[in-house]
Protein backbone atom coordinates (compact mmCIF):
# COMPACT_ATOMS: atom_id res chain seq x y z
CA UNK A 1 0.00 0.00 0.00
CA UNK A 2 1.84 3.08 -1.19
CA UNK A 3 -0.17 6.25 -1.00
CA UNK A 4 0.56 9.42 -2.90
CA UNK A 5 -1.18 12.40 -1.36
CA UNK A 6 0.42 14.89 -3.75
CA UNK A 7 -2.37 13.84 -6.09
CA UNK A 8 -4.64 16.23 -4.16
CA UNK A 9 -2.25 19.15 -4.64
CA UNK A 10 -1.65 18.38 -8.29
CA UNK A 11 -5.38 18.32 -9.04
CA UNK A 12 -6.20 21.25 -6.81
CA UNK A 13 -7.83 23.51 -9.45
CA UNK A 14 -10.15 20.74 -10.65
CA UNK A 15 -11.16 19.77 -7.11
CA UNK A 16 -11.80 23.41 -6.28
CA UNK A 17 -14.02 23.89 -9.33
CA UNK A 18 -15.97 20.78 -8.30
CA UNK A 19 -16.38 22.11 -4.79
CA UNK A 20 -17.61 25.46 -6.10
CA UNK A 21 -20.15 23.66 -8.29
CA UNK A 22 -21.31 21.69 -5.26
CA UNK A 23 -21.74 24.91 -3.28
CA UNK A 24 -23.59 26.57 -6.14
CA UNK A 25 -26.06 23.71 -6.39
CA UNK A 26 -26.47 23.43 -2.61
CA UNK A 27 -27.04 27.14 -1.97
CA UNK A 28 -29.54 27.62 -4.79
CA UNK A 29 -31.37 24.41 -3.89
CA UNK A 30 -31.56 25.32 -0.19
CA UNK A 31 -32.93 28.80 -0.93
CA UNK A 32 -35.52 27.78 -3.51
CA UNK A 33 -36.64 24.59 -1.75
CA UNK A 34 -37.21 26.54 1.46
CA UNK A 35 -39.62 28.90 -0.33
CA UNK A 36 -41.44 26.00 -2.00
CA UNK A 37 -41.42 24.09 1.30
CA UNK A 38 -43.08 26.94 3.21
CA UNK A 39 -45.77 27.17 0.52
CA UNK A 40 -46.38 23.41 0.46
CA UNK A 41 -46.39 23.21 4.27
CA UNK A 42 -48.89 26.05 4.52
CA UNK A 43 -51.08 24.50 1.80
CA UNK A 44 -51.11 21.21 3.68
CA UNK A 45 -52.52 23.04 6.71
CA UNK A 46 -55.14 24.77 4.60
CA UNK A 47 -58.81 24.02 5.35
CA UNK A 48 -59.73 23.97 1.66
CA UNK A 49 -59.63 20.39 0.34
CA UNK A 50 -58.54 21.69 -3.09
CA UNK A 51 -55.36 23.02 -1.52
CA UNK A 52 -54.91 20.43 1.23
CA UNK A 53 -55.09 17.18 -0.75
CA UNK A 54 -52.80 18.11 -3.65
CA UNK A 55 -50.21 19.21 -1.07
CA UNK A 56 -50.56 15.93 0.84
CA UNK A 57 -50.23 13.94 -2.38
CA UNK A 58 -47.13 15.83 -3.47
CA UNK A 59 -45.43 15.56 -0.08
CA UNK A 60 -46.19 11.90 0.50
CA UNK A 61 -45.26 10.71 -3.00
CA UNK A 62 -41.94 12.53 -2.98
CA UNK A 63 -41.11 11.28 0.52
CA UNK A 64 -41.88 7.73 -0.58
CA UNK A 65 -39.37 7.56 -3.42
CA UNK A 66 -35.57 7.79 -3.51
CA UNK A 67 -33.93 11.05 -4.58
CA UNK A 68 -32.31 9.25 -7.52
CA UNK A 69 -35.77 8.58 -8.94
CA UNK A 70 -36.71 12.24 -8.77
CA UNK A 71 -33.43 13.18 -10.45
CA UNK A 72 -34.10 10.68 -13.24
CA UNK A 73 -37.66 11.92 -13.56
CA UNK A 74 -36.56 15.42 -14.38
CA UNK A 75 -33.68 14.17 -16.45
CA UNK A 76 -36.01 12.19 -18.73
CA UNK A 77 -39.09 14.39 -18.47
CA UNK A 78 -37.66 17.89 -18.67
CA UNK A 79 -36.45 17.62 -22.31
CA UNK A 80 -39.86 16.29 -23.33
CA UNK A 81 -41.75 19.04 -21.52
CA UNK A 82 -39.37 21.79 -22.56
CA UNK A 83 -39.00 20.44 -26.08
CA UNK A 84 -35.23 20.80 -25.87
CA UNK A 85 -32.47 19.23 -23.82
CA UNK A 86 -31.78 20.94 -20.49
CA UNK A 87 -28.25 21.22 -19.15
CA UNK A 88 -27.56 18.90 -16.25
CA UNK A 89 -27.19 21.73 -13.72
CA UNK A 90 -30.73 23.02 -14.33
CA UNK A 91 -32.14 19.52 -14.41
CA UNK A 92 -30.42 18.59 -11.12
CA UNK A 93 -31.41 21.87 -9.48
CA UNK A 94 -35.11 21.39 -10.30
CA UNK A 95 -35.00 17.82 -8.99
CA UNK A 96 -33.37 18.91 -5.71
CA UNK A 97 -35.84 21.74 -5.18
CA UNK A 98 -38.86 19.51 -5.79
CA UNK A 99 -37.44 16.72 -3.61
CA UNK A 100 -36.25 18.79 -0.66
CA UNK A 101 -39.32 21.01 -0.52
CA UNK A 102 -41.45 17.98 0.37
CA UNK A 103 -39.30 17.28 3.44
CA UNK A 104 -39.09 20.97 4.38
CA UNK A 105 -42.88 21.24 4.07
CA UNK A 106 -43.29 18.67 6.82
CA UNK A 107 -40.88 20.58 9.06
CA UNK A 108 -42.77 23.83 8.41
CA UNK A 109 -46.09 22.15 9.15
CA UNK A 110 -44.78 20.69 12.42
CA UNK A 111 -43.33 24.08 13.34
CA UNK A 112 -46.61 25.91 12.80
CA UNK A 113 -48.52 23.20 14.66
CA UNK A 114 -46.10 23.46 17.58
CA UNK A 115 -47.38 26.95 18.43
CA UNK A 116 -50.04 26.56 21.15
CA UNK A 117 -53.57 27.38 20.03
CA UNK A 118 -53.93 29.75 22.99
CA UNK A 119 -51.34 32.03 21.37
CA UNK A 120 -53.52 32.38 18.28
CA UNK A 121 -56.65 32.97 20.31
CA UNK A 122 -54.90 35.56 22.46
CA UNK A 123 -53.57 37.33 19.36
CA UNK A 124 -57.01 37.40 17.74
CA UNK A 125 -58.71 38.61 20.90
CA UNK A 126 -56.30 41.53 21.22
CA UNK A 127 -57.69 42.68 17.89
CA UNK A 128 -55.09 41.42 15.42
CA UNK A 129 -56.36 40.20 12.08
CA UNK A 130 -55.53 36.64 10.97
CA UNK A 131 -52.63 37.67 8.68
CA UNK A 132 -51.28 39.93 11.44
CA UNK A 133 -51.48 37.09 13.97
CA UNK A 134 -49.66 34.83 11.53
CA UNK A 135 -46.96 37.39 10.86
CA UNK A 136 -46.35 38.72 14.38
CA UNK A 137 -47.29 35.84 16.67
CA UNK A 138 -47.33 32.43 14.98
CA UNK A 139 -44.49 32.56 12.46
CA UNK A 140 -41.81 34.05 14.74
CA UNK A 141 -42.39 31.23 17.25
CA UNK A 142 -42.84 28.58 14.57
CA UNK A 143 -39.60 29.45 12.79
CA UNK A 144 -37.73 29.33 16.08
CA UNK A 145 -39.03 25.83 16.73
CA UNK A 146 -38.16 24.74 13.20
CA UNK A 147 -34.53 25.82 13.18
CA UNK A 148 -32.87 22.62 14.45
CA UNK A 149 -34.83 20.41 12.05
CA UNK A 150 -34.28 22.83 9.17
CA UNK A 151 -30.52 22.91 9.62
CA UNK A 152 -30.40 19.11 9.88
CA UNK A 153 -32.30 18.92 6.61
CA UNK A 154 -29.97 21.46 4.97
CA UNK A 155 -27.02 19.29 6.01
CA UNK A 156 -28.67 16.29 4.38
CA UNK A 157 -29.31 18.35 1.26
CA UNK A 158 -25.69 19.42 1.13
CA UNK A 159 -24.59 15.78 1.21
CA UNK A 160 -27.29 14.82 -1.29
CA UNK A 161 -25.88 17.18 -3.91
CA UNK A 162 -23.31 14.43 -4.50
CA UNK A 163 -26.11 12.60 -6.32
CA UNK A 164 -26.03 15.15 -9.14
CA UNK A 165 -23.04 13.02 -10.06
CA UNK A 166 -25.40 10.54 -11.63
CA UNK A 167 -26.54 12.80 -14.46
CA UNK A 168 -23.04 14.08 -15.11
CA UNK A 169 -23.00 17.43 -13.29
CA UNK A 170 -19.36 18.15 -12.43
CA UNK A 171 -19.67 18.64 -8.70
CA UNK A 172 -17.12 17.47 -6.13
CA UNK A 173 -17.93 13.74 -6.30
CA UNK A 174 -17.95 13.65 -10.10
CA UNK A 175 -14.64 15.49 -10.28
CA UNK A 176 -13.16 13.13 -7.69
CA UNK A 177 -14.29 10.12 -9.70
CA UNK A 178 -12.66 11.51 -12.84
CA UNK A 179 -9.35 12.11 -11.05
CA UNK A 180 -9.46 8.73 -9.29
CA UNK A 181 -9.95 6.89 -12.56
CA UNK A 182 -7.34 8.82 -14.47
CA UNK A 183 -4.64 8.45 -11.83
CA UNK A 184 -5.63 5.11 -10.22
CA UNK A 185 -5.69 6.83 -6.85
CA UNK A 186 -9.14 6.02 -5.49
CA UNK A 187 -8.13 5.84 -1.84
CA UNK A 188 -6.49 9.26 -1.60
CA UNK A 189 -9.13 11.09 -3.62
CA UNK A 190 -12.21 9.62 -1.92
CA UNK A 191 -10.69 10.02 1.54
CA UNK A 192 -9.97 13.65 0.75
CA UNK A 193 -13.46 14.51 -0.48
CA UNK A 194 -15.03 12.61 2.42
CA UNK A 195 -13.08 14.92 4.74
CA UNK A 196 -14.15 17.98 2.75
CA UNK A 197 -17.82 17.01 3.03
CA UNK A 198 -17.36 16.21 6.71
CA UNK A 199 -15.77 19.56 7.54
CA UNK A 200 -18.64 21.40 5.82
CA UNK A 201 -21.45 19.39 7.39
CA UNK A 202 -19.84 19.36 10.82
CA UNK A 203 -19.43 23.13 10.70
CA UNK A 204 -23.10 23.44 9.77
CA UNK A 205 -24.12 21.28 12.72
CA UNK A 206 -21.99 23.35 15.13
CA UNK A 207 -23.72 26.51 13.91
CA UNK A 208 -27.05 24.74 14.42
CA UNK A 209 -26.14 23.84 18.01
CA UNK A 210 -25.17 27.43 18.77
CA UNK A 211 -28.38 28.74 17.24
CA UNK A 212 -30.37 26.25 19.27
CA UNK A 213 -28.70 27.30 22.51
CA UNK A 214 -29.13 30.97 21.79
CA UNK A 215 -32.74 30.85 20.75
CA UNK A 216 -33.91 27.97 22.92
CA UNK A 217 -37.36 26.44 22.53
CA UNK A 218 -39.96 29.15 22.11
Amino acid sequence: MDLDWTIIVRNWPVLLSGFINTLKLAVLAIGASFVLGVVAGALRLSRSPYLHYPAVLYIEIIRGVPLIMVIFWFYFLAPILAGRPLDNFTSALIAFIVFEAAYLAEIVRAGIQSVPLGQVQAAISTGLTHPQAMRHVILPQAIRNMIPALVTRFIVLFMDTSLAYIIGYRELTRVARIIAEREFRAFEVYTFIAIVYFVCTYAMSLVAQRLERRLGPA
Partner: protein
Amino acid sequence: MLLAGFLGLQYDFRWSVLWESPFGYWLLQGVKNTIILSLLAWVIALVLGIALGILRTAPWRVPRAVATAYVEFFRNTPLLVQLFFWYFAVPQILPAGPIRDAVNSLNVDTPLLTLNYEFLAALAGLGVYTSARVGETIRAGIQSIPRQQTEAALSSGLSLVQVYRHVLIPVGLRIVIPPMATEFLSIFKNSSLAVTIGFAEITFQTQQVNSYTFKGLEAVTAATLIYLAISLTIAAFMSRMERQYAIPGLIARGATRE
Protein backbone atom coordinates in the same frame (compact mmCIF):
# COMPACT_ATOMS: atom_id res chain seq x y z
CA MET B 1 -49.35 7.56 -27.24
CA LEU B 2 -52.73 8.80 -26.07
CA LEU B 3 -51.26 10.38 -22.97
CA ALA B 4 -48.49 11.96 -24.98
CA GLY B 5 -51.02 13.38 -27.44
CA PHE B 6 -53.18 14.65 -24.62
CA LEU B 7 -50.29 16.51 -23.03
CA GLY B 8 -49.02 17.65 -26.41
CA LEU B 9 -45.70 15.93 -25.85
CA GLN B 10 -43.23 14.82 -28.44
CA TYR B 11 -42.81 11.40 -26.92
CA ASP B 12 -43.92 7.97 -27.98
CA PHE B 13 -44.81 5.96 -24.90
CA ARG B 14 -44.29 2.21 -25.08
CA TRP B 15 -45.28 0.75 -21.71
CA SER B 16 -44.88 -2.82 -22.91
CA VAL B 17 -41.13 -2.59 -22.29
CA LEU B 18 -42.04 -3.15 -18.65
CA TRP B 19 -43.25 -6.71 -19.16
CA GLU B 20 -41.73 -7.75 -22.48
CA SER B 21 -39.07 -10.43 -22.24
CA PRO B 22 -36.43 -10.02 -20.90
CA PHE B 23 -37.09 -6.56 -19.42
CA GLY B 24 -39.89 -7.59 -17.08
CA TYR B 25 -37.66 -10.32 -15.69
CA TRP B 26 -34.84 -7.81 -15.18
CA LEU B 27 -37.09 -5.52 -13.17
CA LEU B 28 -38.25 -8.40 -10.97
CA GLN B 29 -34.63 -9.39 -10.38
CA GLY B 30 -33.98 -5.78 -9.39
CA VAL B 31 -36.82 -5.80 -6.86
CA LYS B 32 -35.49 -8.99 -5.31
CA ASN B 33 -31.94 -7.59 -5.11
CA THR B 34 -33.14 -4.31 -3.58
CA ILE B 35 -35.02 -6.19 -0.87
CA ILE B 36 -32.12 -8.56 -0.07
CA LEU B 37 -29.56 -5.75 0.04
CA SER B 38 -31.76 -3.54 2.22
CA LEU B 39 -32.69 -6.25 4.71
CA LEU B 40 -29.13 -7.53 5.16
CA ALA B 41 -27.80 -3.99 5.50
CA TRP B 42 -30.51 -3.33 8.09
CA VAL B 43 -29.31 -6.29 10.17
CA ILE B 44 -25.76 -4.90 10.10
CA ALA B 45 -27.01 -1.40 10.94
CA LEU B 46 -29.11 -2.64 13.84
CA VAL B 47 -26.36 -4.75 15.43
CA LEU B 48 -23.69 -2.04 15.04
CA GLY B 49 -26.19 0.68 15.98
CA ILE B 50 -27.11 -0.98 19.29
CA ALA B 51 -23.41 -1.46 20.08
CA LEU B 52 -22.78 2.22 19.30
CA GLY B 53 -25.74 3.28 21.41
CA ILE B 54 -24.35 1.34 24.38
CA LEU B 55 -20.79 2.62 23.97
CA ARG B 56 -21.95 6.23 23.70
CA THR B 57 -23.96 6.12 26.92
CA ALA B 58 -21.73 3.85 29.04
CA PRO B 59 -19.19 5.38 31.46
CA TRP B 60 -16.05 4.26 29.59
CA ARG B 61 -14.28 7.28 28.18
CA VAL B 62 -12.17 5.89 25.31
CA PRO B 63 -14.82 3.61 23.75
CA ARG B 64 -17.28 6.50 24.01
CA ALA B 65 -14.95 8.83 22.12
CA VAL B 66 -14.34 6.21 19.43
CA ALA B 67 -18.06 5.52 19.01
CA THR B 68 -18.83 9.25 18.85
CA ALA B 69 -16.18 9.81 16.18
CA TYR B 70 -17.54 6.86 14.17
CA VAL B 71 -21.10 8.13 14.32
CA GLU B 72 -20.22 11.74 13.48
CA PHE B 73 -17.99 10.77 10.56
CA PHE B 74 -20.28 8.25 8.87
CA ARG B 75 -23.40 10.33 9.47
CA ASN B 76 -21.86 13.49 8.06
CA THR B 77 -20.36 12.26 4.79
CA PRO B 78 -22.46 11.45 1.71
CA LEU B 79 -23.50 7.83 1.29
CA LEU B 80 -22.41 8.03 -2.36
CA VAL B 81 -18.85 8.90 -1.37
CA GLN B 82 -18.85 6.08 1.18
CA LEU B 83 -19.99 3.62 -1.48
CA PHE B 84 -17.20 4.76 -3.80
CA PHE B 85 -14.79 4.36 -0.93
CA TRP B 86 -15.80 0.75 -0.29
CA TYR B 87 -15.95 -0.14 -3.95
CA PHE B 88 -12.95 1.69 -5.45
CA ALA B 89 -10.65 2.63 -2.57
CA VAL B 90 -10.72 -0.46 -0.35
CA PRO B 91 -9.44 -2.85 -3.07
CA GLN B 92 -6.63 -0.36 -3.75
CA ILE B 93 -5.27 -0.55 -0.20
CA LEU B 94 -5.55 -4.34 0.01
CA PRO B 95 -2.12 -5.92 -0.40
CA ALA B 96 -1.57 -7.10 -3.98
CA GLY B 97 -1.92 -10.85 -4.01
CA PRO B 98 -4.52 -13.55 -3.45
CA ILE B 99 -6.88 -11.40 -1.33
CA ARG B 100 -7.12 -8.58 -3.85
CA ASP B 101 -7.49 -11.05 -6.71
CA ALA B 102 -10.26 -12.86 -4.87
CA VAL B 103 -12.07 -9.56 -4.25
CA ASN B 104 -11.77 -8.51 -7.88
CA SER B 105 -12.90 -11.79 -9.36
CA LEU B 106 -15.55 -12.74 -6.79
CA ASN B 107 -18.58 -14.07 -8.63
CA VAL B 108 -20.56 -16.83 -6.97
CA ASP B 109 -24.13 -17.72 -7.87
CA THR B 110 -26.19 -18.43 -4.78
CA PRO B 111 -29.89 -19.31 -4.73
CA LEU B 112 -30.64 -15.79 -3.45
CA LEU B 113 -28.38 -13.62 -5.57
CA THR B 114 -25.07 -13.42 -7.37
CA LEU B 115 -22.42 -12.81 -4.74
CA ASN B 116 -19.87 -10.35 -6.12
CA TYR B 117 -17.83 -7.44 -4.86
CA GLU B 118 -20.47 -4.95 -6.04
CA PHE B 119 -22.86 -6.55 -3.59
CA LEU B 120 -20.37 -6.67 -0.71
CA ALA B 121 -19.35 -3.04 -1.20
CA ALA B 122 -22.99 -1.93 -1.35
CA LEU B 123 -23.78 -3.96 1.76
CA ALA B 124 -20.84 -2.53 3.70
CA GLY B 125 -21.55 1.03 2.59
CA LEU B 126 -25.28 0.96 3.29
CA GLY B 127 -24.85 -0.98 6.54
CA VAL B 128 -22.15 1.26 8.01
CA TYR B 129 -23.85 4.51 6.93
CA THR B 130 -27.17 3.43 8.43
CA SER B 131 -25.50 2.05 11.58
CA ALA B 132 -24.23 5.55 12.39
CA ARG B 133 -27.75 6.97 12.04
CA VAL B 134 -29.28 4.12 14.04
CA GLY B 135 -26.56 4.48 16.70
CA GLU B 136 -27.46 8.15 17.11
CA THR B 137 -31.15 7.32 17.40
CA ILE B 138 -30.55 4.61 20.02
CA ARG B 139 -28.25 6.88 22.02
CA ALA B 140 -31.03 9.48 22.15
CA GLY B 141 -33.49 6.76 23.17
CA ILE B 142 -31.31 5.50 26.02
CA GLN B 143 -30.59 9.03 27.23
CA SER B 144 -34.29 9.86 27.30
CA ILE B 145 -34.83 7.19 29.96
CA PRO B 146 -34.95 8.94 33.35
CA ARG B 147 -31.71 8.56 35.34
CA GLN B 148 -33.61 7.26 38.32
CA GLN B 149 -34.38 4.05 36.43
CA THR B 150 -30.67 3.29 36.05
CA GLU B 151 -30.03 4.27 39.66
CA ALA B 152 -32.91 2.11 40.91
CA ALA B 153 -31.70 -0.84 38.85
CA LEU B 154 -28.13 -0.44 40.08
CA SER B 155 -29.18 -0.09 43.72
CA SER B 156 -31.33 -3.21 43.46
CA GLY B 157 -28.05 -5.04 42.90
CA LEU B 158 -27.89 -5.36 39.11
CA SER B 159 -24.52 -4.93 37.45
CA LEU B 160 -24.11 -2.30 34.73
CA VAL B 161 -24.23 -5.02 32.06
CA GLN B 162 -27.48 -6.32 33.55
CA VAL B 163 -28.91 -2.80 33.67
CA TYR B 164 -28.29 -2.45 29.92
CA ARG B 165 -29.52 -5.95 29.19
CA HIS B 166 -32.76 -5.77 31.19
CA VAL B 167 -33.62 -2.07 31.47
CA LEU B 168 -31.91 0.39 29.14
CA ILE B 169 -31.84 -1.61 25.87
CA PRO B 170 -35.41 -2.99 26.00
CA VAL B 171 -36.95 0.32 27.10
CA GLY B 172 -34.70 2.42 24.84
CA LEU B 173 -35.54 0.36 21.76
CA ARG B 174 -39.25 0.66 22.39
CA ILE B 175 -38.98 4.42 22.80
CA VAL B 176 -37.21 4.86 19.46
CA ILE B 177 -39.52 2.71 17.34
CA PRO B 178 -40.98 5.70 15.41
CA PRO B 179 -37.61 7.19 14.33
CA MET B 180 -36.31 3.67 13.65
CA ALA B 181 -39.25 3.12 11.32
CA THR B 182 -38.10 6.20 9.41
CA GLU B 183 -34.58 4.78 9.18
CA PHE B 184 -35.93 1.45 7.99
CA LEU B 185 -37.85 3.23 5.22
CA SER B 186 -34.74 5.23 4.34
CA ILE B 187 -32.56 2.16 3.91
CA PHE B 188 -34.77 0.93 1.05
CA LYS B 189 -34.67 4.33 -0.62
CA ASN B 190 -30.92 4.69 0.00
CA SER B 191 -30.24 1.27 -1.48
CA SER B 192 -30.95 2.89 -4.87
CA LEU B 193 -27.49 4.48 -4.67
CA ALA B 194 -25.96 1.03 -5.22
CA VAL B 195 -26.69 1.65 -8.92
CA THR B 196 -23.56 3.82 -9.00
CA ILE B 197 -21.27 0.89 -8.22
CA GLY B 198 -23.06 -1.52 -10.53
CA PHE B 199 -25.13 -3.62 -8.13
CA ALA B 200 -28.17 -4.90 -10.01
CA GLU B 201 -30.97 -3.46 -7.86
CA ILE B 202 -34.14 -1.79 -9.21
CA THR B 203 -32.59 1.51 -10.24
CA PHE B 204 -29.77 -0.30 -12.02
CA GLN B 205 -32.27 -2.46 -13.91
CA THR B 206 -34.29 0.59 -14.99
CA GLN B 207 -31.05 1.98 -16.41
CA GLN B 208 -30.50 -1.30 -18.23
CA VAL B 209 -34.00 -1.20 -19.70
CA ASN B 210 -33.41 2.41 -20.72
CA SER B 211 -30.13 1.67 -22.45
CA TYR B 212 -31.64 -1.24 -24.40
CA THR B 213 -34.93 0.40 -25.36
CA PHE B 214 -34.45 4.19 -24.88
CA LYS B 215 -37.69 4.08 -22.91
CA GLY B 216 -36.28 5.68 -19.78
CA LEU B 217 -39.47 7.42 -18.73
CA GLU B 218 -41.47 4.18 -18.65
CA ALA B 219 -38.74 2.37 -16.75
CA VAL B 220 -38.35 5.18 -14.20
CA THR B 221 -42.13 5.29 -13.74
CA ALA B 222 -42.16 1.57 -12.99
CA ALA B 223 -39.30 1.89 -10.50
CA THR B 224 -41.00 4.89 -8.84
CA LEU B 225 -44.20 2.88 -8.36
CA ILE B 226 -42.22 -0.06 -6.97
CA TYR B 227 -40.46 2.15 -4.43
CA LEU B 228 -43.77 3.76 -3.47
CA ALA B 229 -45.32 0.34 -2.97
CA ILE B 230 -42.41 -0.74 -0.77
CA SER B 231 -42.61 2.50 1.25
CA LEU B 232 -46.36 2.24 1.79
CA THR B 233 -46.15 -1.42 2.79
CA ILE B 234 -43.42 -0.75 5.34
CA ALA B 235 -45.16 2.36 6.67
CA ALA B 236 -48.37 0.39 7.26
CA PHE B 237 -46.47 -2.45 8.92
CA MET B 238 -44.44 -0.11 11.11
CA SER B 239 -47.42 1.90 12.32
CA ARG B 240 -48.98 -1.36 13.54
CA MET B 241 -45.76 -2.22 15.30
CA GLU B 242 -45.60 1.25 16.84
CA ARG B 243 -49.02 0.80 18.37
CA GLN B 244 -48.19 -2.69 19.61
CA TYR B 245 -44.90 -1.78 21.27
CA ALA B 246 -45.65 1.74 22.45
CA ILE B 247 -44.90 2.15 26.15
CA PRO B 248 -48.15 3.00 27.97
CA GLY B 249 -48.07 6.44 29.52
CA LEU B 250 -45.45 7.84 27.17
CA ILE B 251 -46.18 9.95 24.13
CA ALA B 252 -45.23 7.34 21.57
CA ARG B 253 -44.96 9.56 18.55
CA GLY B 254 -41.85 11.51 19.43
CA ALA B 255 -39.92 13.84 17.18
CA THR B 256 -38.44 11.94 14.26
CA ARG B 257 -35.18 13.03 12.83
CA GLU B 258 -34.75 12.76 9.12
